[in-house]
């Protein structure tokens, strides 16, 4: 099986985000692989181990944004591809999904494309379904379990989640899957893995390499801002006993019409 897993570099989730002169900044916070994507890499590695095959990590970004690819390689991915082109600066999701689809097509003979649930920076969760639509492959989002894969028959079965419960879905392959945290804990990269990843070489494809023109973006974000400081006056609820504290809180909640 040939599996592609899409990974993205993002600022650490513990970073304090600020806006300086209209630009987003995370100070000197470390850069990491998008945490959701670790679950996708974990699933990719397990599927390749169970069914035979190889895992390629795919990242669209600036050439120096190597953290996600390095992490995927350190976890055990066999290969990586970076797509980078100055023309992609400020791309929206539809534009990015066109580029990622083109890269998947160029990689060729792919059976399964795995994504994380969403990026923790832009929080959109659109790329998996948009790539699926562009490739005309089934889109299976929020998958927690792979129950049966028969690569020879080109079928797979997954459990995916919705607000009302889980759906067991059978689908044809190739398919696009986004993986949730429910899949299970991602492995830590081994020492050997980290060493291998730090020396790994991988191709960097431009749009010309993909044979496509720069896709146009129609979504713009002319303005970013920090949340208005909500003036929160914290009132500490006192009381000599837990009972008294509970009663005082209830009185406050009634007085402020919260109840």
């Amino acid at each position, binding site marked *: 099986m040939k599996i592609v897993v899409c990974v993205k570099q993002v600022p650490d*989730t513990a970073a304090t985000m600020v806006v300086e002169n209209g630009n987003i900044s995370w100070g000197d916070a470390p850069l990491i692989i998008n945490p959701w994507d670790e679950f996708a890499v974990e699933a990719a590695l397990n599927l390749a181990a169970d069914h035979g095959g190889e895992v390629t990590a795919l990242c669209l970004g600036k050439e120096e944004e190597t953290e996600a690819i390095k992490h995927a390689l350190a976890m055990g991915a066999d290969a990586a591809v970076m797509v980078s082109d100055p023309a992609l600066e400020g791309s929206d999701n539809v534009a990015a999904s066109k580029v990622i689809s083109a890269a998947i097509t160029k990689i060729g003979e792919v059976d399964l494309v795995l994504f994380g649930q969403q990026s*923790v920076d832009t929080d959109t969760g659109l790329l998996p379904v948009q790539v699926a*639509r562009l490739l005309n492959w089934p889109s299976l989002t929020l998958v927690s379990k792979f129950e049966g894969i028969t690569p020879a028959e080109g079928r797979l079965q997954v459990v995916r989640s919705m607000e009302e*419960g889980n759906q067991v879905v059978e689908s044809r392959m190739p398919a696009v899957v986004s993986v949730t945290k429910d899949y299970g804990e991602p492995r830590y990269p081994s020492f050997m893995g980290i060493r291998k990843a730090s020396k790994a070489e991988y191709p960097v494809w431009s749009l010309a390499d993909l044979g496509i023109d720069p896709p146009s973006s129609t979504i713009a974000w002319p303005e970013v801002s920090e*949340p208005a400081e909500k003036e*929160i006056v914290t009132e500490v609820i006192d009381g000599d006993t837990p009972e008294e504290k509970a009663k005082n809180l209830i009185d406050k909640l009634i007085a402020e019409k919260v109840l």
Partner: protein
Amino acid sequence: MTKKILAYIDHFHGKVQSASWEGMGLAVRIAADSGGEAAALILGEGIKDLADQAFHYGADQVYLADHAVLKDFRPEPLTDLITAAAEEYQPDVMIFPTTTRGRTLAGMAAVDLDTGVMVDVINLDWGGGKLSATRPIYGGKLFAKLTCSSSPEIVTLRTRAFDKPEPDPERSGTVTNLDVKLDPADQTTKVLDHQEKASAVSLSDASVIVTGGRGTAVNPALTPPDDLDEEAVEKWKAEKGFALVQNLADVLGAAVGASRAAVDAGYIEYDHQVGQTGKVVSPDLYIACGISGAIQHLAGMRSSKVIVAINKDPDAPIFNFARFGMVGDMHEILPPLTDGLKAYLEG
């Protein structure tokens, strides 16, 4: 400029996700301001009565496809119909709820219609002709204003960010049936089974949420059965702690949430996790029990209207975001709080 707005009504086997009506209400307001009109799009099986509801919530028109192949959620045929409806109705704006299904369908339809999506919008400005949408990014640490230069402009609305209109049972309108040209033998995907979730209240549309953190398992007053190892004792204690959280939630008709630490330790399922890598919520009342208030947790709940924090550490960061703070042991405070609220609400 008059605007035509198409609101997608997301439902599961006919049970509507309430954010869909919030979207319908918004569609009606934009239409009214521009002298335009609002239509609802409803797809499924056995869902004809939802058309009446859509009229009650303000739709002028309903586009409907009621067909056996639409019984289960399968994004491909649904997107085909959404695209077809958009091509027929020619809306300027399409509105989806940011539910799991709404997000997926909005994203796929945008590809078909060669436009973009402004996702998880919390505020929308339509005064200038084009939309200006505000949405949280970086897990709510920042906000971005978005515009879309292509048409239709597609937005998905965060649940509870927009008002749900009062239904008017007198209203009605015209229904247009969409032609379903789907192949019932299509084997692209097949839904084999549906597994219901145990918890009845969903976090994203709950107006009250009670959450437990690692503190649920910190209760020296309890004596666990002595045949348990350390890990089992922790879980045993957490089970008791979460039972207190659940009792309070039951009294308030609230949903139960959890911190990631509680989820990772196996106290409760991931479905309950609130935060940057869990659910983002904004209830009227959020009661955090034994939660420190890590930045990733705050990202998921800081827009709650009133936050109550119960924590035994007076320096816990959660207190900086709480309207009311109680320094103390959650295991001692929750039982009298639950009883007191029960007495008040019943009396």
